[in-house]
C-alpha cells in the first residue's frame, strides 16, 4: 500500500533546484530528522555558499547565511553560544574542502559538537561547474576542459576518510548517496545518527553526500545518477567511517 | 615629573626594579607610567623600561630625557648615557659596568657593587631591589618608609610576601648607600 509522505512542516515552499540534483533530497531528509526528533524550535542551520543557498527562504528554522568556506567556524560560534541547540553546517565540496578546508579540519580537530553535512557533486555548481577538490580524474569542467589531470592537480580529496582516520575522537563520520531509494533511507539513518550524537554531546559528526549535478555535468538526470552509482561510488565508497561509541 | 630608564641584561630583574619604583610612586598618590622596551630592541638579551612619575599627568610615557639612568651592563651604559638630562644621575653596577664612565661632565655617576652586596646578604637575585632602594633615595621623592611600604605591598599582592624580610634588607642597603 502506498503511503503519502507528508512534507515536513519546516519546509514552507518549493526549492528550485535543477531536475536530478541531490540537494532537495538532502534538505528534505534533514527536515524530516529535525521533525522526528522534535527539534523544530531548537535547531540552527548555517548554510554555506553554493546552489544550496537557494534553500534558505524555504527552511523555517533558525538559519544563517555563512561566508564561503567558513561554515565550521561560524557554526562553532553558534554552538558555543547555544550549547543545547542542534547546530548544522550545510556545505558543498568547494565550500568545505577547498576554500574552507582550514575551518573544516579545525572544527573536527577540536571535536566541536556540531554536525557538518557536505554535499559532494564533484564540481563548483553555482558558478557554472568549475573543477573542485573532488572532481574525478579526467572529468571535464570549465577549468579543466581537457579533463582533470591529477598529475598536476592532485587526486580527489576523501574528506570523511581523512577526518575519521586523523581524529578518532570525533563522534560519527559517514558517506551516503541520494541516487537510489535504498541509499536515501540509509542516508537518513546517517543524518539521524549524527544529530542524535550531537544532542547527546558526543562530539563532531560529519556526513558527506554524493550528489549528481546533471546541469554542469551535461547529462540527463538519469545519466547523472548512473554516473554517481558507477564511477563516483567506486572512488568514494559509501558507509560509516567512524561509528558512534556506546556511552 | 621624573623620568628613569632601567637598562641591563634580561634576567637581572630590570623590569621589576622599574615596577617597584612606579608602584612606590603610586602608593604615595602620584601618577606613574611604566613602559618596557620590546620588539627589535629587545633581542640580544637586553632589557629596559622607562618609568615616569609625578604629581601631574604623565604625558609621553616613552623615553625622552631621563633624570636617572640605571645601567646594569656596559652596552646599557653606552646606549643610554647620551640621553640622560643634564644634571642627571647615572647609577651603575660597579662590577658589571667596567667601561669608561667618565664620558660626560654634566652628570653624576654612582657606582655600586649591587650584585656582590646581594650575594653577601644571601639574596642572590636581590641586586635589582638594592638598585630600587638607591634610586628611591637619589630621586629625592621618597622616604625609606614610603619606599618599603610601596614595594612590600606590591610583592604581597603578587603572592611574594614571604620575601618581605630579605627584600626590605636589600632595599635599605641601597637606600642608605648614599647620604
Amino acid at each position, binding site marked *: 500500500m502506498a503511503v503519502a509522505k507528508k512534507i515536513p512542516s519546516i519546509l514552507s515552499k518549493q526549492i528550485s533546484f535543477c531536475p536530478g540534483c541531490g540537494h532537495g533530497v538532502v534538505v528534505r531528509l534533514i527536515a524530516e530528522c529535525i521533525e522526528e526528533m522534535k527539534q523544530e524550535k531548537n535547531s540552527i542551520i548555517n548554510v554555506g555558499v553554493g546552489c544550496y543557498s537557494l534553500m534558505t527562504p524555504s527552511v523555517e528554522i533558525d538559519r544563517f547565511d555563512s561566508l564561503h568556506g*567558513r561554515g565550521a567556524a561560524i557554526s562553532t560560534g553558534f554552538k558555543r553560544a547555544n550549547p543545547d541547540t542542534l547546530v548544522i553546517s550545510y556545505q558543498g565540496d568547494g565550500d568545505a574542502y577547498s576554500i574552507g578546508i582550514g575551518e573544516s579540519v579545525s572544527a573536527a580537530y577540536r571535536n566541536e559538537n556540531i554536525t557538518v553535512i557536505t554535499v559532494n557533486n564533484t564540481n563548483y555548481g553555482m558558478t557554472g561547474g568549475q573543477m573542485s577538490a573532488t572532481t574525478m580524474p579526467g572529468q571535464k569542467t570549465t577549468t579543466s576542459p581537457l579533463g582533470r589531470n591529477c598529475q598536476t592537480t592532485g587526486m580527489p580529496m576523501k574528506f570523511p576518510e581523512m577526518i575519521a582516520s586523523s581524529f578518532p575522537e570525533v563522534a560519527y563520520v559517514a558517506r551516503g548517496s541520494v541516487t537510489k531509494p535504498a541509499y536515501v533511507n540509509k542516508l537518513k539513518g546517517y543524518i539521524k545518527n549524527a544529530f542524535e550524537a550531537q544532542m547527546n554531546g558526543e562530539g563532531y559528526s560529519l556526513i558527506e553526500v554524493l550528489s549528481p549535478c546533471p546541469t554542469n555535468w551535461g547529462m540527463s538526470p538519469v545519466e547523472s545518477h548512473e554516473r554517481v552509482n558507477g564511477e563516483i561510488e567506486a572512488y568514494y565508497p559509501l558507509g560509516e567511517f567512524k561509528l558512534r561509541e556506546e556511552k | 615629573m621624573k623620568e628613569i630608564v632601567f637598562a641591563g641584561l634580561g634576567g637581572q630583574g630590570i623590569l621589576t626594579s622599574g615596577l617597584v619604583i612606579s608602584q612606590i610612586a603610586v602608593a604615595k598618590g602620584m601618577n606613574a607610567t611604566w613602559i618596557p622596551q620590546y620588539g627589535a630592541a629587545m633581542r640580544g638579551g637586553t632589557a629596559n623600561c622607562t618609568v615616569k612619575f609625578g604629581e601631574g599627568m604623565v604625558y609621553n610615557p*616613552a623615553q*625622552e630625557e631621563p633624570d636617572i639612568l640605571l645601567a646594569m651592563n656596559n652596552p646599557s651604559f653606552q646606549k643610554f648615557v647620551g640621553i640622560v638630562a643634564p644634571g642627571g644621575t647615572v647609577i651603575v653596577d660597579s662590577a658589571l659596568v667596567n667601561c669608561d664612565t667618565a664620558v660626560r661632565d654634566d652628570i653624576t655617576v654612582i657606582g655600586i657593587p649591587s650584585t656582590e652586596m646581594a650575594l653577601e646578604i644571601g639574596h642572590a637575585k636581590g641586586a635589582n631591589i638594592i638598585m630600587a632602594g638607591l634610586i628611591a633615595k637619589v630621586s629625592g621623592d621618597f622616604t625609606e618608609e614610603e619606599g618599603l611600604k610601596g614595594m612590600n605591598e606590591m610583592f604581597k599582592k603578587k603572592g611574594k610576601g614571604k620575601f618581605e624580610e630579605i627584600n626590605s634588607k636589600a632595599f635599605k642597603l641601597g637606600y642608605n648607600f648614599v647620604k
Partner: protein
Amino acid sequence: MSDMVKGNHAFAEAAVRAGARFYAGYPITPSTEIMEYLSTRMEEVGGVFIQAENEGASMNILTGASASGVRCFTASSSVGMTLKQEAISHMADSDLPFLAFNVVRYGNGLGTLDTGQSDYHRDTRGGGSGDYRCIVLAPYSIPEAVELISVGFDLSDQYLVGTIIHTEAALGQMMEPCDMPEMKTVERRFGAIDGTYSHKRISPLTRNRLEEAVEMKERYERIKANEQRWESEYVEDADYVLVAYGLAGRSVIGAVKQLREEGHKVGYIRPITLWPYPEKAFEAVNPEVKGYISVEENATGQMVDDIALTLKKTSQASKDVFALTYAYGVPAMKKIKADFIRITKGEIKEVY
C-alpha cells in the same frame, strides 16, 4: 590608590566587566596578553574562550556568537586584523555587533613589533570589501581605554556595527594605575538566533539590498551626528592647532602645554573617535588660525587626510595642513616642539 596594571590585562578585564562572555582569538604580539589573561578569566565568569586556528576563523566564530546575541570580542594586531576583514565585512552585512582590539604594531605585511599608528586608514574606512564602517575608538591611556571598552560594546549594540578599540603596542604593553569598573550583566540581544525561530530571518535571496543600503547610510549619519568624541584645549586663540590621537595625542598635549608656557599660541585636538571623525571639534577653532598639524606615528601621514577633508567641510579649506610623521614609536615632546618650530619657520612644507 589603584595599582599599576598592564594595558592588555586591563583591556581584557574591562571587556569582561562590560558583560562580554565570549572571546575567540589567535595570538599575535603585542596583543597576546589579552588572550592569555582571558584563557583562565573567561572560565571563572562562566564565559566562552576559544583559541581558534587562525585570525579569520576567530572572527567567524564571533559571527556565530554575535548572531546568537552574545556580547563578544576579539583582540589582534595590524596584520592579524587584516585577516579578520572578510568576517568583519560579513558581520557588517548582517548588522552584527562586535568589539575588536587592534593593538597596532607599525609596518606593512608582517610589520614590526614596535608601536605605531599605521592602520588609521584601514580601520576608519571599514577595512574589508564593501560599503561599511566600524566605530573606531582611540584611547590615550589605560583608564580611558577601560572606559571606552564599555562604551564601545554599548555603541555596537545600539547601532548594530562593529567597534574597534584602536590602540597601540605601547599602550598594550605599558602599565599605569587604573581602577576597574563594576561588573555588568548583559542580556542577549533581542531578536538574536537561539534555535527557537522566534524571529524570522530574511534570506539573502529575498533581501532588499537597496532599502538596506539606504537604512545603513541613515544609521551611519546618526552615528556621525551623535557619537563624535574628542578632547581639545586652547583652540579659540590658537595660531596653530596640533591634532593627534592615542599616545601621540598624549605626547602632543604635553608638548602644547610646554609651548604655551614658552609663549606660543598653540592648541590641540585629540580625536577619541577616529570614525566618526570629530569634525565638530574643528568648528571651535580660531578663524584666524594659521594651520593645522597632524602628529602621527607613521611615515606617510594618514589622519592628515581627514583633517583636510574636515577643513573643507567646516569652510576652512584655505588653511595649511601639515603632517609631522614619526615612524615609529611614541614621538617625544621635545621632538614635537622642535618640529613645530621648524613649521613656524617655513622649514616643513604643508601637505595640503
